[in-house]
């Protein structure tokens, strides 16, 4: 990582975030209305809320896929709320791993090639051999080293999501953002995925933020925040 490993700052520090979508002249949607949140390094946080509560918008902003209309967002101590597209791409590449509800794997690429993907776009762009090795390590971490050459279509849903997690881990980021990671999976497979998150959080000190609408799922996190109409209405530690 480019940053010195210091724990003097929280992983995420967001103040008074607002996001307004202008649909037409007199029709605006305020997805976030002055939301503030702080997430410490190594925390496992779940963000709960019904659809339309602004949790996807929050996830996009926290994941540097989008910018807030107003407010300040510091990621790993760095203000990232007003960066250019390419700078945000760099941050996403180095600091954040994404896990999506629908996996988003390249259908015609092998598991290994899928995991290699983030390494293609990093600042240092390692060579083939190094990429391969690092991707194999990541697959190993999610217990799929024996499926490296399989195409996504040859894998079960849970295995596909684990490939996606391995991909998120490939560049060794400090933050993992998961958007409804169990939404397309059955309960027992979902549980495996959640346990994987918990294990990564515990063993590697990975900061995990998981967005869900399911209270059962949210319970795997150490702390839950609840969103409604673009604001946090509830913030508590899970027992």
């Amino acid at each position, binding site marked *: 990582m480019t940053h010195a490993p210091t724990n003097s700052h929280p992983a995420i520090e967001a103040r008074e975030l607002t996001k307004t979508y202008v649909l037409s002249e007199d029709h605006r949607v305020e997805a976030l209305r002055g939301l503030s949140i702080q997430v410490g390094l190594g925390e496992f946080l779940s963000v709960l809320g019904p659809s339309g509560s602004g949790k996807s918008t929050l996830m*996009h902003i926290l*994941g540097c*896929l*989008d910018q807030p209309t107003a407010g300040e967002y510091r990621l790993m101590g760095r203000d990232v709320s007003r960066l250019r*597209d*390419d700078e945000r*791409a*760099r941050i*996403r*590449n*180095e600091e954040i791993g*994404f896990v*999506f509800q629908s996996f*988003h794997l*390249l259908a*015609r*690429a092998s598991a290994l*090639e899928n995991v290699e*993907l*983030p390494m*293609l*776009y*990093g600042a240092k*762009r390692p060579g*083939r*051999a190094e990429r*391969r*090795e690092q991707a194999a390590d990541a697959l190993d971490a999610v217990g799929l080293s024996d499926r490296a050459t399989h195409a996504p279509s040859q894998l079960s849903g849970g295995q596909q999501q684990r490939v996606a997690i391995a*991909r998120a881990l490939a*560049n060794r980021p400090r933050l993992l953002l998961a958007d409804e990671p169990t939404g397309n999976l059955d309960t027992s497979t979902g549980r495996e995925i959640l346990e994987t998150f918990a294990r990564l959080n515990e063993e590697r000190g990975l900061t995990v933020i998981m967005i869900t609408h399911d209270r059962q799922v949210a319970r795997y996190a150490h702390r839950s925040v609840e969103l409604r109409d673009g604001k946090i209405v509830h913030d508590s530690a899970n027992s």
Partner: protein
Amino acid sequence: MTENAGARQPDRRPAPRGIPAARDALFAAVAGLWARLMAELSAERRTAAETALQSLRRYPLRTGLTLLGLAFGVAALMATISLGRGAQTAIGQQVRAAGLNVIEISAGNYRTRGERPIGGVEAPARHGRVVPPGVLERLWQRVEPVALAHPENDPMEKHDHPTAAERLGDSAAGLGAAATLTRDDAEAIARLDGVAHAASGVHESVRAFAGDRRWFTRLHGTDIDLVEIRRSFSLRHGRFFSARELRRASQVAVLGSVARDRLFGPEVDPVGETITIWNQPFEVIGVVVSTNWMNPGAPGDDEFDAIYTPFTTVHRLLNVTNLNSITVTAASSGEVTQVADRITELLRERHGIGDAQADDFTVSTQASAVLSKGLHPKVAETLAGNIPNLERTTLRQLAATLERSSRTMSALLLSIALVSLLVGAIGISNVMLLSVRERIREIGLRMAVGAKTTDVGGQFLAESVLVGAAGGLLGVVLGTIAAFVIEGSFGLAVDISFAAALIAFLVALLTGIIAGVSPARRAARFDPIVALGSE
């Protein structure tokens, strides 16, 4: 990685042969080139190229079809260029082969200076064939004949071809010549400015015998330079006689294809055989055939129905020293008349001819023969004065006509090639645009994991460029094959050049680049959130 490498070791497979071996070698070569190219590129370009190659390989059918579409266009372009160049070269060769830069000097003057420059006697009835091959050549050479007694006209002799007098007119056939030209004249002419070659010539009509076959034909005692002068000569078998044989007056003979056919039979290689002329044995050392489609060689044509031997040999056997003719080529065809004038001046001086006297020789150029053909003497006379200008015009017109027709064909083919190339380009662009649309989610994902806009745009541009390059290479190969096929089956001249291949390839590459720009820009402009959310 090491595991994979181990598994791919081909040591257990039998060594590939033939096409598989060639294919493997090709793949290895391409892989080697690719590796070198990659080493040259910046990290970002390398990523673009690598991801592009991966994507292309993941959709082999789509890639293949796009590539093929382009390759056909390039092949057409390449074949067109080759055909066009071939036609151009062929025209140049034909013009030269037709002998437009040839100047013929005959001994004696069969047209009195200033009066009846071209004989006014009616031509004897020609033989039955209406338009025999080589008619153009012959038209040029046909000067109105003067009836003269000649052994070929002997009523006791049976001919199945027109006699030389009928064909050519006696003077052009080298008959009725005075003993005015000498070897020294030929050597003096050879030293003149603008003269490329000068060949001494003694011409006789002879009966040649080979076993029990005999053939009445022309014997040309000539010089080693003749092969350079007669552009349409091609030695099918053996060789032309050497300077040494010329010096020694050796009894060697090079047969024209027609003489060979009659004395030995078609397609026979008579080199090493002996023929008899004037009861003297001649060793056959070569066979000349025509490379000129305007004059493929026919009985009685004086060039291929002929036997060539050193003029020194004819001199020795007949115990003569004069020459019937000197054949000269001008270094450039635009200079023919000036060179002809210089020769006239030189010969008049050498022969000590006073201003009031007529030449004792005749200098004729092919153009003058063409121009004065069949004209009223008075008109021809006027024309003759203007020959220097007319000649240039005629030469130019002939070349221009030939070139125009080849250019028309080239333009037609080129337009076909360009249309197919355009279709190929639209094909790439279309497929790339579709591919962008189809892979929006992939683009979104790549952006989410850190691909910059330039990475995504670069990948799609690189895909297009790679298709362009591969299509170009394939097209060049196909085009080369097509050109050979055209040459083989239609007999059209084809000139496959490195330049044509390079142009065709670069056009394909350019097509790839241009076709890729718009899809690449589209791909790069996506908002990752929108792209990820699209289904």
